[in-house]
């Protein structure tokens, strides 16, 4: 084991183990969002809810679908998408946002990554209220498979750690990447089956969907919310991306962890 490799691994494992620190940091950020507002993070939930309900009705009619079917689908999809996309966007700035502490202390940088992911999971729980409301007025199947939402979220979080660490490092060095990522995500939202279901493609462009990693991240969270089990292919893609991504992250982090304070 080369020392650099060891340092990177120690940072990641040590950082994950310091859950009390990143747990606190994540909560604290949520608490800050509540300051001096009555609803705090629920404001984003409400605007998301407004977006979903209005567009849901229009699109259900546009695509000649039953709103009672379409609304839960759109809501669960949007919640999952919001989680995944904010994880990616905020992943870009994990290190740049922590500049002052990265430049004044020696600590496990992974704490910053974990705090960002934890924070977004808490936000997801806030948003979940919209889904509960929608589910009350429509017919959503709640069964044992619904519990799969927990491993689904865990898989997204596990992928989030490698993604945020990797993107955070790259964005610390190349500030343009942040802009590139947000531009791509904007388009990806329409290309990924969030507003529409892959079945509407009727067999066209199947590879386009099958190999869209973002789609599978959405699937492992969305399907259980609708009382269905995600496909094995989705689980395979998500687990595969975790394995490949973590290896890539460890490699890059080993080489460049030491450079991060220089880049900030």
């Amino acid at each position: 084991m080369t020392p650099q490799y060891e340092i990177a691994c120690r940072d990641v494992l040590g950082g994950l183990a310091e859950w009390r620190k990143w747990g606190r940091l994540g909560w604290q950020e949520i608490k800050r969002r509540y300051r001096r507002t009555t609803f705090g993070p629920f404001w984003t939930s409400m605007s998301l809810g407004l977006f979903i309900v209005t567009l849901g009705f229009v699109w259900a009619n546009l695509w000649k679908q039953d709103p009672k079917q379409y609304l839960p689908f759109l809501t669960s999809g949007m919640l999952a998408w919001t989680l995944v996309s904010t994880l990616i966007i905020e992943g870009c700035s994990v290190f740049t946002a922590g500049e002052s502490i990265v430049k004044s202390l020696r600590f496990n940088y992974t704490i910053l990554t974990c705090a960002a992911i934890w924070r977004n999971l808490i936000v997801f729980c806030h948003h979940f209220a919209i889904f509960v409301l929608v589910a009350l007025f429509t017919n959503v199947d709640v069964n044992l498979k619904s519990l799969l939402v927990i491993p689904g979220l865990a898989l997204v979080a596990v992928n989030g750690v490698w993604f945020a660490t990797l993107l955070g490092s790259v964005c610390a060095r190349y500030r343009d990447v942040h802009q590139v990522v947000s531009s791509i995500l904007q388009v990806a939202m329409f290309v990924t089956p969030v507003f529409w279901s892959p079945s509407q493609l009727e067999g066209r462009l199947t590879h386009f969907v099958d190999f869209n990693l973002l789609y599978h991240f959405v699937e492992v969270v969305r399907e259980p919310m609708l009382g269905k089990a995600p496909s094995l292919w989705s689980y395979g893609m998500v687990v595969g991306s975790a394995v490949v991504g973590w290896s890539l992250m460890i490699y890059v982090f080993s080489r460049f962890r030491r450079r991060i304070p220089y880049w900030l």
Partner: protein
Amino acid sequence: MVSLVLDNATVDFPIYGAQKSFRSALRSATGGLIKREGRNQERVVVRALDNVSLNFREGDRVGFIGHNGAGKSTLLRVCAGVYEPTQGSVKIEGNVSPLFNMSPGLDPEDTGYENIVNCGLFLGMSWEEIDRKTPDIVEFSELGEYLNLPVRTYSAGMMTRLGFAIATAIDPEILILDEGLGAGDARFADKAKRRVDSLIARASILILASHSDALIQAMCNKAILLQSGSVVKSGTVEEVLDAYKQVNQAV
């Protein structure tokens, strides 16, 4: 055994976005050597430290002396393990407590109590340690009920008191201080000095960067003179301060 060893440590800062504005390499009176690297000399780097080798062990009280931009702060950060040298190595045995800015992680929106926990965690205290030390921090800062209010409502002096009280509550093995720690009104400054003294007394190794001869003489038993990123003199405080005076007269 607490120790700190630097072996031929060199630190080059890459300067991004300066490529077009720098016409040629130059050596300036202040700051490190600015030079170009890479195939087409397209990369601008500042050499902030050049082949620095140091060896500190328990009981060492070291003062870093030098002009602005001589590399004092960079060297402090290398000693703290914040910057890993681009060449050479640094080996740190023991807990390092760097106090460069008063309060890493202080957030103006959080209350005083919340900030005590946040900063404490960043400074490497455990949850239990923070619980144990909070009464001391509260008492020392003299902020009383204000600790329940967001820090943004504090005056500058009150904020300094809080940051100072938290930062000095640690139990350091290797204590690294940049000058100018401690502020507030005259009465508090006096109290702060006593607190820093006891903090220093608890530390096994002290590293202090300062422009004040008196401070270095009072606190240190060793000194190092830095110039353009290199150690030009190391030895007892008197020897090094003499060398510094000669350098100043020469300029």
